[in-house]
């Protein structure tokens, strides 16, 4: 393939950006759910 370094870096970015967003969204949702469960479990005054 011609221009291989250019192609590889473009595809690497093209995979990395959506994956980074997806992982961060998943982590954020899980941590929010955990925090919410912890708050909700405590008896309310």
């Amino acid at each position, binding site marked *: 393939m011609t221009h291989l370094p250019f192609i590889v870096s473009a595809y690497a*970015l093209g995979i990395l950006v959506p994956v980074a967003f997806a992982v961060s969204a998943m982590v954020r949702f899980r941590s929010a759910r955990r925090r919410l469960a912890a708050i909700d479990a405590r008896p309310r005054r």
Partner: protein
Amino acid sequence: MQTSPVLPARGAPARSLHRFANPGRFLRISGRVLPFLSAAALVLTLAGLGAGLFLAPADWQQGDAVRIMYVHVPSAWLASFGYVALAVCSLLSLVWRHPLADLAAAEISPVGAGFTALCLATGSIWGKPMWGAWWVWDARLTSVLVLFFLYLGHVALVRAFDDPQRGYRAGAILALVGVVNLPIIKFSVDWWNTLHQPASIGLTGSPTMHFDMLWPLAVAALGYTLAFMAIVIARTRAAVLERRIHGLLMARAEAVR
């Protein structure tokens, strides 16, 4: 997570758009849709990029460098589509005071900024070997850079106020003002002479791209679109929970006082 005892139950079933505004219902429906959406996004994106890399032919003059198109063009389309989604949410928020639209708008802009950055970066990587320059200040490239700054401005503005409602309002106005940039991006290559070539695929006329290159591009674009939607939905779900936590803590603080 199924029901939402935390939020006050809404009175009479609201008509029109507010039917979809109930966060509990949003969590329920989106939770069911998201796994399928994510799986489809993953499969289509990998299939499209794989086909672009290994099945699609090289270009007669660009050689294999044309394969950068299968990342660059979908991200460019999504940079614009994402902004349309942001503008729609902003309109829903400003006019109809739709509470979920506020949260969705705040979650769309960082993702839109990410895909616009991807478009600019891959364009640069494509431009260096083909045009001979990483960057030029022509009307197309400049207007996409403006789009990137609009996204960043929205990200910052929405989070700049102590009262989130004011942030949402200011962000919505900025997003709607920025809509004028979308036709400028689209038609920049037709209205002015630019280094960037005009569109190959339009609503009228046959695409000036061979079919063997067109179908991997279509598959990759569909995959990226579904990925964008899945990411925004997942982020909005997290934002709904975070708002609920915030509300709970505030209520508790009030009760203690």
